[in-house]
C-alpha cells in the first residue's frame, strides 16, 4: 500500500532526515533533492513521502513550519529537531555498518 518497494525498509526515513539536515525543506523539495542527488535512481513517490513526513513529525524527529516557497507559495517546511539530529546520526552509523557488512559479503569470491 504505497510502501517504497524499491527502497530497503526504513531507508526512506534516513533519506528524508539526511536531506533536510542542512536546511528546512518542503515535501516537494525533499523529493526533488533525493532524485537529483541519487542521479534519478531514487524516486520518492508522494504516496510514501507525505505519510513518512507526518509519521516522523509525530515521533518528534522533525518539526514543521509554514513559510514562503521560492516561488512565493505558502509551503510547509520541515526541519530536524535536536532529537531528530541525534536519531539521524545513529541511523546513519547503523546504515554504514549494515551496507559495509553487505559489501563485505558480496565482495566474497
Amino acid at each position: 500500500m504505497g510502501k517504497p518497494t524499491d527502497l530497503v525498509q526504513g531507508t526512506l526515513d534516513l533519506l528524508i532526515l539526511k536531506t533536510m539536515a542542512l536546511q528546512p525543506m518542503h515535501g516537494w523539495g525533499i523529493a526533488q533533492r533525493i532524485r537529483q542527488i541519487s542521479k534519478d535512481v531514487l524516486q520518492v513517490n508522494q504516496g510514501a513521502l507525505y505519510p513518512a513526513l507526518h509519521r516522523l513529525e509525530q515521533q518528534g524527529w522533525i518539526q514543521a513550519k509554514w513559510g514562503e516557497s521560492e516561488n512565493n507559495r505558502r509551503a510547509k517546511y520541515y526541519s530536524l529537531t535536536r532529537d531528530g539530529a541525534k536519531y539521524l546520526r545513529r541511523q546513519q552509523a547503523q546504515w554504514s555498518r549494515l551496507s559495509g557488512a553487505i559489501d563485505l559479503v558480496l565482495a566474497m569470491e
Partner: protein
Amino acid sequence: MRLLYKLPLRWRSLFQRRAADQDLDEEVEFHLQHQIDEFVAQGMSAEEARCAALRSLGRLQQTKEECREMRHINFLENVGQDLHFGLRMLRRSPGFTVLAVLCLTLGIGANAAVFSWIEGILLRPFPMVAGQERMMAITGTSRAEAGPTAISWPDFLDLQHNCKLFDAFIVDQIMGATLNVGDHAAVVTGSVVSANYFDALGIRPILGRAFEPEENYGRNAHPVAVISYQMWKDLFHRDPAIVGKTQKFNGQPLTIIGVAPEAFHGTFVGWAMQFWVPVSMQERFVPGGYMLEDRDAPWIEGYVLRKPGVTAQQAQSELSAVAQRLEASYPETDRGHGIKLYPLWATPFNHAGSLLPILSIALGVVVFVLLIVCANVSNLLLVKAFGRRHEMTVRLSLGARRGRLLQQLITEGLLLAGAGAIGGLILARWTRNLLVLLLPKRNGSAMFLSGAVDWRVLVLSAVACLASTLLLGLVPALQTRELDLASALKSESGGVSGGRRRALAQSSLVLIQVTLSFILLVGAGLLLKSLRAVQNTNPGFSTLDVLTTFVDTKSAGYGSQRVYSFEDDLVDRLRTMPGIQSAAFARSTPFTYRPYSAAPIAVDGYVTPPGEQPVVEYNEVSAGYLPTMGIPLLSGRDFTRADNETSLPVAILNQTIATQFFRGQDPVGRRIQVKGRWLQIVGLAKDSKYSTLIEPSKPFFYVPMRQSVPGTSLFVRTSLPPRELANALSREVHTFDANLAIGEVLTMREEIDRTTAEQQVAVAMLGAFGGLALLLAGIGLYGVMSYVVSQSKREFGLRMALGARAPDVLRNVMSRGLLLTMIGIVAGVVVALGLARLLGNLLYRISPHDPLTFTLAAVVMIIASVASCFLPAWRATQIDPVRALRD
C-alpha cells in the same frame, strides 16, 4: 524532550482536526502545483499538466488518509464515533437497553455494596479515626482456655510502659448503662476507655474537652463522661451549655465534659457508642468489683496503634516478649498468659469477627451474580448481534478490519457496563445501611454498620465494570469472527449453520447460568437448613412463655437492700395477676451480649491440674428463677428467700460442672469454693444453653442474688403477649415508685433469635440472590429455547407433516431444554461440592455435602427450567406444517 514536540501535535490532531486536515490539503496541493509547474516547463498546456500531475500523484485521497493515520488519532477518533454510534444503537432499542442496564446495575451494584460493606465494616470501620491501617485489636490469651481473654489493668500498664514499637495502647471496654428516659428505662451502650482514647484516635470533641491523663487513676475519682453527638441531640436537645452538667448513668452521676463529633461512633464494630468514661470509673461500670489494682482481674479489651513502619509481626513479637517477662515476674497471677494482636477485620470482641464469614460469602455470591448477569446480558447482545449480522458483513466487505468491529462491540459493552456501574454505585450508596436493617434491633442501642463508598470501592467497582464489559463484548465479537462474507451476504435470510453456532454460544451461556444459580441454590439451602437446625436446638429453658425485661432500679439510685425488698414485692404482686404464673430476677439475661460473672473455682477432692485454673461462669438469681425459666431441678432444692446475707452461702450447679468436678456423683451436700468463699451445694439443675444455641455444654452454676449482687433483669412466666405485659408491668412498677422505669419487653425466643442474626442475614442474602439467579437463568433458557424453535420451524413442520403429533414435538423441545439444565446441574454439583466447605462454621449440624439439599436444589432448578421451556415448546406445537414447509 520529544514530548514537547509531540504533545501539541496530538492535541491539534484531536481537537483541531479541521485545521490539521486543512494543512494537509494545502500541503498536498502545494506538491501538486509544483508537479504541474514542472510538467508545464516540459511543454504541456496547463490543463494537460494538471491531468498528468494528478495521474502521476496517484491516489491523492489515500495518501491523505495515510497521513491522517500517521497522526495516530484514528483510534481515539474511532472511540468517539463508536460511542456516538453505540448510543444511537442503544437508544433505538430502549427495551433492551433498560433491561440490560438494570441487570448490570443489579450485578455491579451488588458487588459495589459488598465492597463498601467490607471497606466500611472490616477494613476501615471507624469513621474519622486516624491511622486505622496501623490499628490492631489486642486481647490476652490463656493456656488454660481457648480463645481470647481479657487483660488486667496492671498488666496493660506494664505492656504500655515496656513496649517501644507502639504509638498508643487504648482501653476500649464496651458496657451498658441504664438511663431513665421518661417512664421507660433505656439501655445505652458506652465504653470504659483509657484517658488517651480520643487523642490517640485523633478525635477532637466539638464541645468541651477529652480526658486528661490523670483521669485514668484513682478509684472512682473522676466521675466524668464524654457523650456522643447522638445522645447530645436526643437526650439533651443540643444544649449548648451541656458541658459541666451532670447525668446519672447506672445511678452514678457523671459530669459531662465533652461532646464527640457527629460522625464518630466509637470503636466497636456493630454498635454506636453513646458515652465514654475513663478507666478510673471501672468499678461503677464493669461488673466484678474494683479491679484496677488487681493483676488477677482481667477485664480489658482494647486496641494498639503501631508506630509507622512497624509491621504486625514485629509488634506481636515485642508484645509476646514483654508478656513473657510479666509471666516470669508475676508467676502466681500471669502464668500461662500471653498477648495477641488481631487485624481490625478479625477483631474477636466485636461484630467484625462474626461478620467476616458472612461478608466473605457475600463477596463470593455477588461475583456469581455478576457472572450470571453478564451471561444474561451477553445472551441479549448475542440476539442483537445476530440481528446486526448484515451490518457487520457490510462493514467487513467495505474493508473494515475485524479489530475495528471488535472495538465497536467493546465500546457498546462499555456503554452498558458503565451505565450499570453508575447505577450500581448509587445502589451501593442506598444500601450501605442495609445490614443494620437485616440485623435485629435492640432498643436504646444504636447499631452502626455502615458501608463506605470511597475511592477503593470506586476502583473495585470500575474493575467489576471493565470485567463485565470484556465479558459482554467478547461473545458477540467471537460471533463476528465466524462471519463468512460470501455466504452471509448471499443467504441473508437464515443460514442454518450460522444459527447452529449461535445456538451453541447461547446454550453455553445458559449452561453457565444454570450452573451458577444451582450453586447459589445449594448454598442458600445449606444455610437455611443449618439455621433451622440451630433454631430447633433446645436451649434447655422455655422460650415462648417466658418474657424478659429489666426494672431500672440503678438509675433511681436504689441501694442493694432496697432493690431486694422492691423486687420481692414486685414478684409477689405479679404472681397474683391473672395470666402470670411466676416471676423472678437475675443479674444476667441469657443470650445477651452482656457477659456473665465468672470466677475461678475449687472443689473438695478435685486436684487442679497444674497450669489450669478453672474459671466458671455463673449467674446471680432470685428464688424461683429456675422454675420461671423452666429449667428442671434434677436433685436438691431451689433457692428460697431465706438464702440471704445472714444464712449459709449456697449454690446450684449444672450437670456439666457436676460431671467434671464430682465425677457424676450427686454434688448436693458437697462444697464448692468461689473467689475464696465456700458455698454449700443445694441443688443440681439440668444443663441449658447460656449464651448461644451452638455452644457445647459448659460448666455453669447459680448463686442467690441476696448473697451476691443485686440484678435488675426480670423474667415472667406468663401466657400474656409481651405488649400487654409491658403495659401491666409499667403500671405496677409505677404504683411502687413513679421514678422507676422498665426496659423493652421481649420473649426469650426473641432474645435467642438475636444471637442467630448473622446466620439469618446470610440466609436472607443467599436466598435473595439465589432466587434472582434462578430467575435470570430461567429467562436465559427461555430465550435459547425460543430461538431454537424459531430457527427449526421447518424441521418441526416437516416432522409434523410426517406424522409427529403435538406431544412428540413438545417432548422434543422440552427434552432439549432439560438436557441443558441437566448438564448445568451436573457441573453445578461438581463445583458446589468443592465450594460448600467454604461455608465452614456457618453450617451447624449439617454436612456441606448434604444430599437432601443438593437434591432439592436440583428439583427446583428442573422445575424452573420446565417452566421456562414450556412456552417455546408449546409454540413449536402450534407450527402450521404447510406454512412452515412453504416458507
